[in-house]
Structure formats: C-alpha cells, structure tokens
C-alpha cells in the first residue's frame, strides 16, 4: 500500500508580528516549522503503517531548498522516503498552481492508495490545496478527518468533523484525506534513532519538468489569483476598564450594555 503525505514548511504564526511602520510581516527570527496539521496527518498515516507490514509512506512537499528541514523531520518520524518540488518556476504559486504541481508529482510517482494532507496550513489557512488536488487527480476526498482507519476489505474510514457534530465516512481507494488534529493532539518529537536513520533515507529534489505539468499552469504566471495588496487589520479602540468592586463594576457594565442597546432582553 502506497501512502503519500503532503507537508508544508510554514512560519510559526504565533510568532509573526507586523512592523507598524511598514505594515509588512516581520519574518526575521520567526522559526519555520512543519505545519501542525500536516504533522497530524503524517502521524495518522504512520498509525496505519504500524498496523500493517506493506505500507510505504512518501512525504511530498513544495518549497525552497530549506524545506528539506520539515521533510527530514517527517522521515525521522517514520516516513520512508521524501520528494521536494523545488524550482524557481514554482515561485508565487496560489492554491491552484500548487495543486497542479503536487498532483502532477503524485501522478509521476504512479499514484497512491491514500493521499494525506493537513486540512490547512497555518500561514494561509485556505484548506484548498487538498480538495483541488483530489479534483485534479479525479479521486474522492474526505475532509476535516480524524481517526482514519482501514477496514478489512481495505476501504478507508474516517470521522469527519462537522459544525454540529461528526460523521463516519467510508471511501474506496484511491482517496485523498485532509486531517484536522484532535483536541488532545500533541505533535511527536522525532526520536534520536529516527533522526539518525532519516539522513540515509531516499531524498529527491524535483524540478518543474518532473511534475509533468504544463509550465503555463505553474508559479506566478499559472496562478489565477493575485495579491493586490496587504495591510494590517484595523485596530480596535482602547479598552474601557470598568472600575469598582465586583458588584459595582457588574452593575455599571450591565447598565452600559443595555443603554447602548447591545442587549435588550426582549426577543
């Protein structure tokens, strides 16, 4: 059984700050990490691998050569081999162009029984690349998935999170699964033997030609969407602290909210 896990190197958004003078992201000193959603997806795949002895896991990423770091981490966690799509032709890709490149690479690898992705990456939060890949590969998708398992006849089951609950879905293979971490998920730290082994596992860097994609579909020129401008979100006004002891403060706040018609009660 072949599993491909798509991973992305992202800046740790909890560390990202805006330069108030230039209104741009301050990226210096911000650590690059394996997108947490992707690590969860990888750990789901590794759990399936642990249950069977015929599973091969390839991790696939697109990014600059430095993205090697997150692929090495994935190998250290237990993936078998890694492919990095790295080429100037990919620069400036939106989700469509990214999906074209990644699905092209999957096709070149001969496809997979299950493709895992994180639901979304914490830098863009779009959740689009997974379903777009599934469409381009013409395979079904299970999104917002957790607790992925294989049935005895090799169907893929997953629990899909919905706004008002969840559903257990079952899909034929091949299928693309996008994972959302369970509340209790704590990303594993690669064990020392894994880190040592990772260095000798197969690692390939592919240029744009190897994806088999039409060059006009890649990178900035292949991207239908364009960023026109970026700016800081409008700030809120200063907070008004309500003085007084608990009783006084509560009463004045309640009075204030009623007077401002924020709460009316009648409804």
């Amino acid at each position, binding site marked *: 059984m072949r599993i491909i896990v798509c991973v992305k190197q992202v800046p740790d*958004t*909890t560390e990202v*700050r805006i330069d108030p003078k230039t209104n741009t992201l301050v990226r210096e000193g911000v650590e690059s990490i394996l997108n947490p959603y992707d690590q969860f997806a990888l750990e789901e795949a590794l759990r399936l691998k642990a249950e069977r002895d015929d599973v091969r896991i390839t991790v696939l990423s697109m990014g600059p050569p430095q993205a090697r770091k997150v692929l090495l981490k994935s190998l250290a966690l237990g993936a078998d081999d890694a492919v990095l799509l790295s080429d100037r032709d990919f620069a400036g890709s*939106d*989700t*469509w162009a990214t*999906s074209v490149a990644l699905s092209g690479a999957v096709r070149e690898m001969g496809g997979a029984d299950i493709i895992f992705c994180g639901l979304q990456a914490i*830098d*863009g*939060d*779009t*959740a689009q690349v*997974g*379903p*777009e*890949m*599934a*469409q*381009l590969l*013409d*395979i*079904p*998708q*299970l999104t917002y998935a957790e607790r992925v398992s294989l049935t005895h006849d090799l169907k893929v089951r997953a629990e*899909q999170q*919905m706004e*008002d*609950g*969840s*559903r257990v*879905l*079952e899909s034929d293979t091949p*299928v693309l699964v996008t994972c959302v*971490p369970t*509340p*209790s998920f704590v990303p594993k730290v690669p064990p020392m033997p894994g880190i040592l082994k990772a260095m000798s596992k197969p690692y390939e860097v592919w240029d744009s030609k190897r994806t088999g994609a039409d060059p006009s579909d890649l990178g900035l020129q292949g991207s*239908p*969407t*364009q*960023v026109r*401008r*970026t700016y*800081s*979100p409008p700030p*809120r006004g200063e*907070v*008004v*602290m*309500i003085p007084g002891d*608990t*009783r006084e403060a*509560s*009463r004045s*706040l*309640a009075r204030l*909210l*009623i007077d401002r018609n*924020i709460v009316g*009660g009648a*409804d």
Partner: protein
Amino acid sequence: MGIEIIREKCVGCTACVKGCPFNAISMKDGKAVIGPECTLCGACVKHCRSDAIEFERPRGKEVDRSSYKGVWVYCETRSGRLMHSALELVSKARELADELGEDVGAMVFGSAAPKSFGILGDHGADVVHFSSESRFDEYLTGNLAPLVSGLVLKHRPSIVLFPATHTGRDLAPRVAASLAVGLTADCTGLTVQDGLLIQSRPAFGGNIMADIISPDVRPQMATVRPNVFKAKGGVGKKPDTFEVNLNEGMKDAAVRIIEIVRTSKEGAKGIEEADVIVGGGGGMRSSENFKVLEELAETLGGAVGASRVAVDAGWRPRSDQIGQTGKTISPRLYIACGISGKIQHQVGMRGSEVVVAINKDPNAPIFKVADYGIVGDLFQVVPALNEAFRELLGGG
C-alpha cells in the same frame, strides 16, 4: 474545449448514460450520443471503460470575460434546513450585482429548496436553480461537485460565492479546480472595483489582511466567512425558479455515510448564529464550572463558547471552540471569561460587535482586543453580572 464520443471505441455499455448527472447522454444505434443538456462537467469520463470519451476540460483562463454575467451563491442546506449563511451571501451578492448591473442567482439543493424560494427572493435572488431531492439533505462531495460545476459552466456567472463552512470549504475548491479558476478562501470583505471583485481575507493567523483579485479568469470564486455580512431582507424579489434535470441513479458511489453524530441540541442556537456568546477559557478549571456561563447566557438569550484550552482539556465539545482552529463568531456581544486571548483565539472573535473581557490578569492579551474589561475573579464577576442583568432587564 469540448467533448466527443469516439464511435469506433464505444462498446455501447451505457455506463456513461448512468453516470451523467444531467441526463445528457442517450443511446443511438448502440452507441452513446451526447445531447444539448451537456454542461461539460466531465463526470462521464471516468465511467467509460473503453476510453471512448474525448474530453478537454474548459479552462477559466481562456474565456471571453464579457460573456460571464451574474453573481451566484451556493446556498447551504443542512438536514432539510436553509442555513443562515445563504441569506448573508445572497444579500452581499445583491449589493455586488447592483454595482455590476447583473442578476443574483442562487443554487439550493435538498428538501429545503422549495420552501426557500420566498426568503431567497426577499434577500435579493433573481433566479434560483434547485433540486428538491432529499439525497442532498446530507452533504456528499461527489453528489454536489459535478452538479454545481455543471450549472456554473452552463450559465456563466461572473462571480460565485460559497459559505466558508466545512461543507463550503469542501465543495468550493473541488468546483474551482474543475473549472481551472482561482478561489479565495474565508473572505471577510467583498467589493467591486473597475468591474473586478476585490476579495479581502485574513492570513498568517489574522496578523495581516490581503486583497485578492482574479483578473483574467471567470468566474471569480470565493468562500465567505459566515456571520461577517448581514442578511438584509425586504428586497421583495419573486425569483424565477429552475429545477435541475437530474439523473435519478447518479450518486457518489465512492463515499458512503456510515454514521452521523450530532452534538448540538436540536433547535438550540449554535455559536455561529447566536447574538450573545459567553466564552470560557483556561480560567474555568472544570466542565462543571461552565454552569455560571450557561446561566448568564440563558439570561441574555445567548450561547456558550470556549477557547481551545477549554476544549483541549475536555471541558467543552469541539463544536463550541472559537478561534483559528475552531469557529468564527460575530455576535453583537461576546463576553470572554477566563480567556487569555492568544492571537489564535482573536482570529475567531474579531467579528464581534462588542467584546467584554473578564480576567484575573490585568495584562492578559484579551484586554487589548476588548471594548470593556473587568479585572477580577470570573466566579464572582459572572454571577454578579448575571444578577445585574436579571434585575435591570426585569426578567428575574
């Protein structure tokens, strides 16, 4: 761009006839023939086992942009009920369409469809494309993606909006990729400038905003955060309705629903829809302690939400989670209790009209994004606040 049956290869097995969502393929002299109902959705291709269908996907990049007219909305239904996001999006679509001098089209599927024509018209829909079949009451990607793609291909709207709900975020990229067009996720602002849709969205965990355009492709597609735009009724349109002619046998064969678990109470307003939300975080310390928040929420006719910390600790179900990995809320009033207010939480609550923070720590980041703050022990402040509201509102 186009589709053709290669007669020499066609073995007359009728698999494509059964696989076409639009009943567009028939048999003639033992061979498949594609009729005028074809929307170029491409669903038939994978059903053909003899490689007899030559198909080139239409590409949004290579179109005559001026032939695309109309602002369309995918209206989500759930278990036979039209979601509020549909009315928000149709209202926004009305504004955009008026600016562009175009019509508003709504797509609605499931048993809720026939009941919703009136309200969709009242929010500004000129045209409704629908199917009332109950198989759409429980969402499956494979049932809807070819249908929506097909309708969009056939009617050529210039803009298509989807709600940025789980369902909308599952469906929209599938449709966008099948049309080879762009898609902007989770928009919180939509305007028209020089005939182009300006799509504003937060990125980097809400640290920055970006304006996105799709200048060269049609349609321009976006998913839109629920609770960001206001639903505005009273437009009083009487929409023309068109039932989609569907193939009875066509359904998502690859994915099956094994079990459905609903965690929110029937009829109760979820945090996506509530006007007042009382949220609890790490300061709550246990699930039992949420009772004080529930009491306040009841007084104000609101709902209870939670930060990731509270959900991770197992005190509240995940459906209550507010923030980057949870839900986006935009109530009139959000009362954050014992929530420190990390950036990930802020992302989910930014749309709230008025924010009240109650926290022991005067330096908690939540106070930086609040309108009113009380520094104190929530277990004293919240009951006191509840008491004050009950008295002042005369409900107690």
